[in-house]
């Protein structure tokens, strides 16, 4: 644990060279420390997503949450979320570019040990899985209940042209998956199919599935919060990062 930290909103260079906002927390240490990119959930770049950034910093990681809906602004984060939802959200190409920009920022910091992981929640979980397949320099990925990893035909759009499950063969780094067995999206059957695909391609992964938990059970500000399962889930996340992101 590193209790001191600096946390603030900054600008980073993302997809297409655009400068976007990101919430960044830096533990007060000279390092070397790893970094983690936090991909926020569908309700947006909200207070809880920023709490996750600070939690990671408390555990010794430089953490950054790019505002994936930034281009749908300007405005308050919740208004920008509504605009993003109305417009269908950011493209996969845009998310990949913004994530890579956040990774570059983390690696450019003097305290960086050069290792960077990602964690994503809900829609961000799907994006974390995609990033693990598409950005070779990523060192570890955590998918928390990512929905639509297995896309339905109607989910395939010009903005999201490929079902993420079909990218599995290109996964470059270890994957940790955290799921609630009462979740409807992804449900148990979808998680089984995803696990089968990872096995088929010989990928390094570990899945943890929790009874008595549904979607978003880490989110302390929502009724789906399940403290017992969430505490254990976070323990798994930090064990996974300690194994794969250490110097």
């Amino acid at each position, binding site marked *: 644990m590193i209790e001191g930290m600096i946390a603030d909103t900054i600008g980073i260079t993302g997809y297409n060279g655009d400068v976007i906002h990101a919430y960044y927390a830096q533990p007060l240490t000279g390092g070397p420390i790893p970094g983690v990119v936090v991909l926020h959930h569908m309700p*947006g770049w909200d207070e809880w997503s920023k709490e996750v950034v600070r939690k990671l910093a408390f555990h010794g990681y430089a953490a950054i949450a790019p505002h994936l809906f930034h281009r749908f602004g300007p405005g308050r984060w919740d208004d920008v979320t509504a605009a993003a939802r*109305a417009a269908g959200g950011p493209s996969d190409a845009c998310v990949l570019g913004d994530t890579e920009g956040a990774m570059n920022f983390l690696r450019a910091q003097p305290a960086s040990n050069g290792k960077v992981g990602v964690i994503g929640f809900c829609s961000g979980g799907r994006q974390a899985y995609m990033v693990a397949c598409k950005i070779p320099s990523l060192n570890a990925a955590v998918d928390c209940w990512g929905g639509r990893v297995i896309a339905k035909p109607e989910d395939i759009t010009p903005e999201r042209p490929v079902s993420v499950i079909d990218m599995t063969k290109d996964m470059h780094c270890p994957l940790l998956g955290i799921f609630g067995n009462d979740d409807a999206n992804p449900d148990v059957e979808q998680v089984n199919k995803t696990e089968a695909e990872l096995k088929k391609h010989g990928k390094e992964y570990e899945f943890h599935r929790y009874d008595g938990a549904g979607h978003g059970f880490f989110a302390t500000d929502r009724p789906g919060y399940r403290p017992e399962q969430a505490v254990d889930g976070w323990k798994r996340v930090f064990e996974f990062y300690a194994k794969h992101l250490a110097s």
Partner: protein
Amino acid sequence: MCSYINEKADIMGHGKGVPDWLPLTNVNVYFDHPVSAPLDHALIIDFTNPAGGTGARVAVELSAESARRLVASIEAALAAGEAEHVFVPA
């Protein structure tokens, strides 16, 4: 002819207020994770005016049961109000 027709319903949800009246040109309706209401999923109705910027909107996030009561109230109010106020030529 003016009436006090008012269909009431108990609801559970959150709303986003604005300081004054504003023109509204679009509405987005979906059932998904809310931003503010303490629900895992909510029926979200977002009245917007994109020309006025992202903040030019009035939004509500309702429980599914509240949304169904609202639908019933709207239908009842329209039926009663139109019967009362709308002139139908003989």
